[in-house]
């Protein structure tokens, strides 16, 4: 008798727990995924075999586009309480005689992407909210020897956080002299170790190849 009863019970597998499990996983993954930052210029990074991942913090990133604009980005440090970004901005403001309000500092702290705004227009930039309007301010950081704001950004960034590592993100079609200029400015500030952002490309060579 029990056998017959078993046969009568539904042959369906209840999928509900599986759905629950997947929802949890999905939610978790969606939460942890970092949204890709909207960079002011699209850069097509060159390929290399390096497998070292980008560090999560203590990074000052210099974005060099194909149109001769240089952008910079700093992170807030391993702890949000450290607030490296607003500190750098205040130092920078002091040097150029610009005072940034609390609100402007918070705006700067939370700005997610690289910026290439000359310091004298930074205030206006922080007050605009519209993405399209902001774009107009992104003329690149001045790196001429007469008005080398990039050098001061580097100087103050390293004063605020001596552990900052330089990271250069360039398009593979960027003209090299511009990158060289950025490297020279960094070297002037005694930064001799660089991380070049690349995409992974597997290359394999075998011994036979060189023995022929």
């Amino acid at each position, binding site marked *: 008798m029990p056998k017959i009863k078993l046969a009568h019970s539904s042959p369906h597998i209840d999928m509900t727990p599986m759905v629950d499990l997947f929802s949890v996983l999905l939610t978790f993954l969606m939460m942890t995924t970092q949204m890709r930052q909207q960079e002011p210029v699209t850069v097509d990074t060159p390929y290399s075999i390096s497998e*070292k991942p980008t560090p999560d913090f203590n990074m000052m990133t210099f974005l*060099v586009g194909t149109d001769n604009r240089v952008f910079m980005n700093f992170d807030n440090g391993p702890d949000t309480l450290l607030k490296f970004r607003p500190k750098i901005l205040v130092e920078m403001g002091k040097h150029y005689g610009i005072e940034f309000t609390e609100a402007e500092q918070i705006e700067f702290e939370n700005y997610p992407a690289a910026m290439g705004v000359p310091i004298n227009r930074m205030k206006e930039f922080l007050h605009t909210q519209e993405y399209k309007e902001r774009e107009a301010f992104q003329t690149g950081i001045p790196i001429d020897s007469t008005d080398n704001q990039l050098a001061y950004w580097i100087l103050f960034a390293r004063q605020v956080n001596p552990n900052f590592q330089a990271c250069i993100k360039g398009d593979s079609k960027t003209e090299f002299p511009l990158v060289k200029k950025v490297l020279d400015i960094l070297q002037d500030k005694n930064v001799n170790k660089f991380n070049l952002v690349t995409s992974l490309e597997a290359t394999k060579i075998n011994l036979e190849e060189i023995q022929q």
Partner: protein
Amino acid sequence: MAEIIQEEKGGKKKGHKGSPHIDMTPMVDLMCLLVTFFMLTTSMSKAKVMEINLPEKIKDPTKQEAPKISASRTLNVVLGPDNKIYWYPGTVKPEEYNNLPPMFQTDFSASGIRQMLLERNRSLFKKINEYEQQVVSGKLVISQDSLRNAISQLKKDDDTGPIVLIKAYKKATYGNFVDILDEMNICGIARYTFVDITWYEEKMVEAASGIPSTATASTN
């Protein structure tokens, strides 16, 4: 959802044959797909970095002297225009600018610069490769970290491989720069660095590639 099912089971109509269940299978399929997608994208979106250490700038040439390296091991690699590489062995004295040696032209393909570098770096490359083989085959059991250390020690002890000086002509691109550094890593070159191009090397590139000369003795 469980409640709904219970309610149905608690049954108003027993004779209802069409299942009151909602078929969850398509939903599971969809979620499976989404989960897989997110898992794949999260691990892949992370960009990689390549480290490079540049020699410190000599700010005061009267106090500091440029390090001396043996000319027989020196290999000068100049990144030229149009994704070309120009190279010559040894050193050139600026006094001989009327009689500059020719430059060899090559490219970024496996049979180009890579073969040239591997030919010169064969003994070290073999040593590194053998060491890695031992680890892969299980003869030698060490961690990833100590493998890296062992390889850097091998590189440090090497005294036959070339010393590569990388230079860039003004028409080179950033992609070329990364490619050549990558090539150094692939070929296991122990000693390489990036230095400024000299005016006579610019001249040599121009002579080799047929660009009208712009360099003069005053530009450095």
